[in-house]
């Protein structure tokens, strides 16, 4: 029962995040999406994934709350309550197939690979390479913004 409620909440908050007119309310709905995703992970036993989802979500939302209000255009009209109710209804309808239908076959071979073993022994090289990619991207963004500030000189 709790999985179904979380799934409905996830889809409804995703619909609200995309189609509400005000930037702040959209970002608040996106916060709901991240929260419901993290709760789904916890219910399925993926606690580390939930913690990371929460941490990354909080960072993203902090930036979006700051930049969203400053940089986005002001909406010409406010979202009407009728539209909000329609979005919630559409979200509930869209989440029904996930609750009542099933396409998954057998779950495959059960293997008890721990998270630490999987992260450091099976994909340790990937982690280091990803860290290098992140550093390169951060450096690139800093260079773009620096060039922009100095007018390309």
């Amino acid at each position, binding site marked *: 029962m709790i999985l179904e409620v979380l799934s409905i909440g996830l889809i409804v908050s995703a619909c609200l995040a995309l189609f509400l007119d005000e930037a702040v309310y959209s970002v608040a709905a996106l916060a709901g999406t991240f929260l419901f995703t993290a709760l789904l992970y916890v219910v399925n036993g993926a606690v580390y994934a939930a913690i990371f989802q929460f941490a*990354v979500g909080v960072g993203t939302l902090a930036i979006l709350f700051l930049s969203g209000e400053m940089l986005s255009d002001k909406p010409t009209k406010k979202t009407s309550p009728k539209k909000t109710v329609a979005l919630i209804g559409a979200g509930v309808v869209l989440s029904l197939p996930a609750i009542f239908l099933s396409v998954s076959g057998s779950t495959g071979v059960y293997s008890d690979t721990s998270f630490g073993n999987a992260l450091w022994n099976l994909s340790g090289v990937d982690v280091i390479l*990803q860290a290098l990619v992140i550093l390169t991207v951060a450096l690139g963004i800093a260079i773009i913004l620096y060039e922009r500030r100095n007018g390309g000189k």
Partner: protein
Amino acid sequence: MDFVILSLVMLTIGIYGLLTNRQLLKVFISIELIATAATLNFVMLASSTGQGLGQAFLILAFSTDTAVSGVVLALLVIVTKKYGTSNINEILKMQEKRESEAEQ
């Protein structure tokens, strides 16, 4: 309850938002939803077979997602400062106007 369909629905909503919204902030939110759908698939399929590998892949996917977020936010800042709006249609119109003025 099927998480594959749930992530498919999330993916569909994200792609629909990406195609229909003209605000850069909404485009960014659409990208976040698509990334969430992908990571949801990873974790749910892996946790159903008892593998921690899905959670490890989630962390790798998060790092890529964060990099994409950084690039999109940098673009949002640059475009909004340059054009004074974050609406893609208006930015395209301004660009066309500038090009036509430059040709004259």
